[in-house]
């Protein structure tokens, strides 16, 4: 009833939702980043899975996309963490509930 691909997709969905959970529920700013990284990893997992189960075309597009996604995610993490540090320096807090300067 369930194919291997479905299991992979379920795992990926679960990883995504875990990431969402981390991003939504935790008060600490770093967790938002961790959650986003997890969501990105889930997307990558999907790319790889579909590449593996898709037709074996001439170019492993899924793999290439995953590689670039990892590189970009690394850049995002670096900048994001730098921002967390900068925000911490400025406001002396990393609690995102207190970082609401943009509220209406």
């Amino acid at each position, binding site marked *: 009833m369930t194919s291997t*691909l479905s299991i992979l997709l379920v795992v990926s969905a679960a990883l995504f*939702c875990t990431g969402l959970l981390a*991003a939504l529920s*935790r008060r600490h700013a*770093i967790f938002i980043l961790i959650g986003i990284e997890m969501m990105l*990893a889930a997307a990558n997992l999907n790319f790889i899975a579909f590449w593996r189960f898709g037709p*074996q075309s001439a170019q492993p597009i899924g793999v*290439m996309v995953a590689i670039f996604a990892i590189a970009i995610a690394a850049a995002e993490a670096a900048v994001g963490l730098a921002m967390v540090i900068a925000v911490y320096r400025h406001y002396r807090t990393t609690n995102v509930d207190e970082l609401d300067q943009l509220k209406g």
Partner: protein
Amino acid sequence: MNIVALIILAIFTLAAALAAATLPKLMHAALSFAVAFVGVAAFYFLLGAEFVGLVQVFVYVGAVAVLVVFTILLTRTDAQKDRGFNWSGVLVAIAVFVGLLWAIFKTQSLAINLPKAEPLTVARIGELLMTSYVWPLQCVGVLLTAALIGALILVMEEKR
């Protein structure tokens, strides 16, 4: 593809991910995060994308995780109030998960048998990166450089 290995790996990875999302101590969560990513890398190995798996370990465990723990170290405060948990997020996450599950099981075309695949060699990936994907590669190079400089400027001591 060993289904048992897959399921064990899935449980391991998801447990680590859940730990990363919920553990109250920041450092534990960060380390769980690293473990979860090792699990994801293992998935890539299992799926035959060894290179991506290695890159995943290299980038996330070797670099991002260390960055995260460094950030935790540098922003250490009275962490008590940062440990709060927003329960509404759980509901939303579960709702999304249910929605995704429904979508996955609704889709009929996923029942594909694993195709026989040529192993994807590193040489092939390198060749592709230098031919078809050379522009994306250069763009990513520029992006990483920009991110490096941007991160440095962000964390530079503010001159008063």
